[in-house]
């Protein structure tokens, strides 16, 4: 028996929600790489059972597996209607397919100020803020496991047409880098609220 994967399973079960991978490592006195490995093993072991693991860049959570989710949903009569507007969905698409992005980058891609949309998405737990290693002044926004599980996927690679769209977007970043104007300089409006 792989000890760490069982401990992670028990910890996530007891928590009853998502936990940052960093925190799992701290609490179980393990290295981040060991936690990643343990999560992979756990997902493999859960295969074909009633539970599965959703993993984002930063978090992990134990959730009900897709094939049995409808039965559970029916049993608990869970209300799941989570409305999302077109603007919100575009921001979500940017962050899922392009990768972690700053508000400035999202604003520039959409051509409008997105601060209130982002705030709504973060307060609903669909996005999370993270420190930006390249620029301490601006946050990066990342997908949460809650966002992934709401889309019914276990990680971002299971997104529809992920490889195609992600590589098309990456090609733009490449051409942008080559062109004279650095991407970050296109800050749109002066709103500083994050």
């Amino acid at each position, binding site marked *: 028996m792989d000890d760490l994967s069982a401990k992670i399973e028990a910890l996530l079960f007891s928590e009853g929600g998502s936990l940052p991978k960093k925190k799992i490592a701290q609490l179980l006195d393990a290295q981040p790489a060991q936690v990643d490995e343990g999560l992979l093993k756990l997902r493999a072991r859960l295969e074909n059972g009633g539970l599965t693991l959703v993993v984002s860049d930063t978090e992990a959570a134990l959730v009900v597996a897709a094939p049995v989710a409808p039965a559970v949903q029916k049993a608990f009569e869970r209300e799941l209607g989570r409305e999302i507007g077109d*603007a919100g969905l575009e921001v979500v698409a940017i962050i899922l397919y392009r990768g972690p992005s700053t508000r400035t980058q999202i604003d520039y891609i959409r051509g409008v100020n997105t601060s209130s949309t982002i705030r709504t998405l973060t307060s609903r737990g669909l996005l999370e803020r993270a420190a930006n290693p390249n620029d301490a002044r601006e946050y990066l926004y990342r997908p949460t496991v809650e966002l992934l599980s709401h889309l019914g*996927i276990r990680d971002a690679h299971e997104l529809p047409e992920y490889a195609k769209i992600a590589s098309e977007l990456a090609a733009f970043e490449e051409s942008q880098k080559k062109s004279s104007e650095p991407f970050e300089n296109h800050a749109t409006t002066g709103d500083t609220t994050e």
Partner: protein
Amino acid sequence: MAGKFNIATDAFQGPLETLLNLIEERRMSISDISLADVADAYLAYVEKLPGLPLGETAQFILVASTLLLIKSRALLPTMDLSEDERDSVLELERRLARLQIIRKASRLLRKEWGRAPLLFPYRAPARAAVFSPAEAAVRTISEAAVRLMNVLPKPEAMMQAVVAPVLALEDVIVRLKERLSNAFKARFSELTKSKDRHEVIVYFLAMLELVRSGSASVTQERLFEDITIENDSLGAPKYGT
């Protein structure tokens, strides 16, 4: 699409989205040609813009000026763009193409949204609470409250942008025609005296349209010199005989 404008909801339509809608409505692909084609419709839309925060209005105007550039080049194929101008045209096309991909992706996500979610547990297993206040104290809590107050988003200042009304090309054409039917002949510099750069471009485009439709002819003695516009549609000029 026009009039479906509501900053109050998150359905707020920005300049790129507006432009992309105009192109997609015409089933065109993103290019100089389609952008020149939708320029008038875009300007008409910008004209009807309601009060928006200054930053948003600036974005609309910025895109409008690039469109005018593209439009002028379409009307004047020999016109040379500076490197900066070429870059701004390319950059606009690139942004539109990327937004198109994002919109495609978000349509895919819309189909998946909440369709078959993976469910979080309804309740976490009960855990007996162990009172552990750590650093919680009146001072730390009130400091946290003050910190929180400082980062609360301020209601967005709905500063009304003081932007000169964007002139519609059609209006300027009508105005130019009137002017020429009275005076037969005018100098471009006089027509655009005390107009800002944006309006000058619109006047220039209007002039080109009149020439193209055969209602006026223009002469320019030397490069960068003033342009003289003459009325051609009223038959032979009566003056000077």
